[in-house]
């Protein structure tokens, strides 16, 4: 589905705000490649620099050092209107004095497309975002979700090489957001345009992306497929930011994973290349809880029922807390009560060994 050509090459880009000793490094040597026809997501908490990076690609922010290339051609010195990329703004930024179709036609007109050729493109884009009957409306007569679709159609109309989406779904309510996630993925497939999507919502990122770049405090933490990011987080930050994770300290020896007084588990850790102390991350759904049999010993300290599943917090015998998730496939089954003694077992590869260093090289 994704090509091998590189659409955007971010080459050791830095962004400094302010001068001299007061300068803040908002982006710290970011280097990544976005491939053609890829749904690429920049994911991170607010203030991590993801929006700044997106605005640099669009041309609204200067690059302090480094370079951004579009299909091999440097974008430095090019103003926003000289770059063949379009943006879907967080606030949509629809032109309030223009109708829906005038909004969508704007980019085409500015590119000098003939009026006769603009009409069919506008009609096609309106169909694409399922707003066929709304051509003559003005933005303020539309709901948030509809405005969102107009913003998408407007940005897609001039057939940009890359579409940039800045937290585009965050203003919508949960149900609409889920709908638009599917919708965006469909639009990306149908148009074959490279999408660069910025979000702080990890679930959104996992759902839609071909690849995700996780950012924190201006630094790139990890780039990879949703599976890579979720199953093989590069460091503690990624493991913590994406999904639920319990962090445990253990020891690898003779193919076993030891947790002091809590006992040991066989063959459950991904990286057994060397013995010794190990910082571990484990997803609550990769563990099983039982009141009989073998496993790590512990006592249930908290039970949270969440509808589709129930999450148990278990205090292991060596003092470390660990969470276990049990799906309620066959009705609400309460496996254990608070204070009850339980055993935890794990599938092969459930524990992920974290690198001690905090950043990816």
């Amino acid at each position, binding site marked *: 589905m994704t090509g091998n050509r590189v659409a955007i090459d971010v080459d050791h880009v830095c962004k400094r705000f302010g001068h001299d000793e007061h300068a803040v490094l908002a982006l710290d040597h970011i280097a990544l490649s976005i491939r053609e026809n890829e749904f690429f997501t920049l994911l991170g908490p607010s203030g991590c620099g993801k929006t700044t990076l997106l605005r640099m690609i*669009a*041309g*609204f922010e200067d690059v302090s050092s480094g370079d951004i290339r579009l299909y091999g051609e440097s974008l430095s010195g090019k*103003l*926003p*209107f000289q770059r063949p*990329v*379009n*943006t879907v*703004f967080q*606030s949509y*930024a*629809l*032109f*309030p*004095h223009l109708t829906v179709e005038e909004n969508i036609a*704007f*980019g085409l007109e*500015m*590119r000098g497309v003939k009026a006769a050729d603009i009409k069919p493109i506008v009609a096609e884009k309106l169909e694409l975002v399922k707003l066929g009957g709304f051509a003559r409306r003005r933005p303020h007569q539309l709901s948030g979700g509809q405005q969102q679709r107009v913003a998408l159609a*407007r*940005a897609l109309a*001039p057939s940009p090489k890359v579409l940039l989406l800045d937290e585009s779904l965050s203003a919508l309510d949960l149900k609409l957001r889920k709908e638009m996630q599917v919708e965006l993925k469909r639009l990306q497939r149908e148009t074959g345009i490279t999408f660069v999507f910025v979000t702080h919502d990890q679930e959104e990122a996992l759902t839609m992306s071909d690849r995700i770049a996780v950012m924190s405090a201006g630094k790139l933490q990890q780039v990879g497929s949703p599976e890579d990011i979720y199953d093989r987080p590069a460091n503690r930050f990624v493991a913590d930011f994406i999904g639920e994770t319990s962090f445990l300290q253990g020891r690898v020896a003779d193919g076993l994973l030891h947790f002091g007084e809590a006992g040991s588990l066989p063959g459950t850790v991904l990286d057994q290349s060397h013995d010794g102390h190990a910082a571990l991350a484990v997803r609550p759904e990769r563990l099983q809880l039982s009141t009989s049999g073998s496993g790590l010993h512990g006592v249930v300290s908290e039970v949270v029922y969440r509808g589709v599943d129930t999450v148990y917090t278990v205090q292991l015998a060596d003092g470390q807390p660990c969470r276990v998730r049990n799906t309620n496939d066959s009705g609400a089954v309460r496996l254990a009560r608070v204070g009850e003694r339980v055993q935890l077992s794990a599938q092969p590869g459930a524990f992920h060994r974290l690198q001690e260093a905090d950043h990816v090289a």
Partner: protein
Amino acid sequence: MQASNTLWRFRGVTPTAMLAFVYLYLPIVVLVVLSFNANRIATLWTGFSFDWYLKVMDNDNILRATKNSLIIACGATVLATSFATMAALAMAGKRFRGQAFINAMLGLPLLVPEIVTAVASLLFFLALGLDLGLMTVLIAHTVFCIPFAYLPIRARLEGLDPRLAEAAADLYAGPFATFRRVTLPLILPGVLSGAMLAFIVSLDDFVITFFVAGAGATTLPVYIFGLIRMGITPEVNAVSALMLLVSIAFVALSYWMGQRKS
């Protein structure tokens, strides 16, 4: 008058407010009424008549002064509004060194006593060796109209989402196209409101005009002042009433433009 405004509950507030309005508007009402007086002596009512309005229409001097006033007001409005729009755009753009100072400088002419501006303008023109006439009046009016035009335009720009200009640039609009297609249509109510204010301020200016107008550049307010010196005639009342009408029309239009949402 909102119910939540507790001021109106105090005794004496309503009569005081009324007294203030009477004080403000009674003289104007008297002037308008007397402009329809049939008697030659302006302050003695003897009957209703349109005569003075007809006399005004027949008076070449008044018509010439009116024409001068309109030429200058229109010219000063166009120039001042253009300069004010450019200034407002610059002030609303990227922050720069000395921005607060320049902003203060733009508003300062509103605070400087008019007589100071008048004398300064006169000396300036004489120093340059310019002949006093319509041109000097036009230049002076343009200058003092700029802050009046600037304020509503600036206010309108402040309320404009900066993302809109970014969106236009993102959609391949260069700076001029962005201004013409997006920024200008959206600040137009402010621009028109500023233009109306500039027009009305120019139309009824007396002090500065009196100083910098040479022979043949007499405007309506300056001409009326000349008439008054020979005694108040019903003709003066009629001219004043007509100017009042124009002023009210423009102020109302300006207010309506400023209120209107685009």
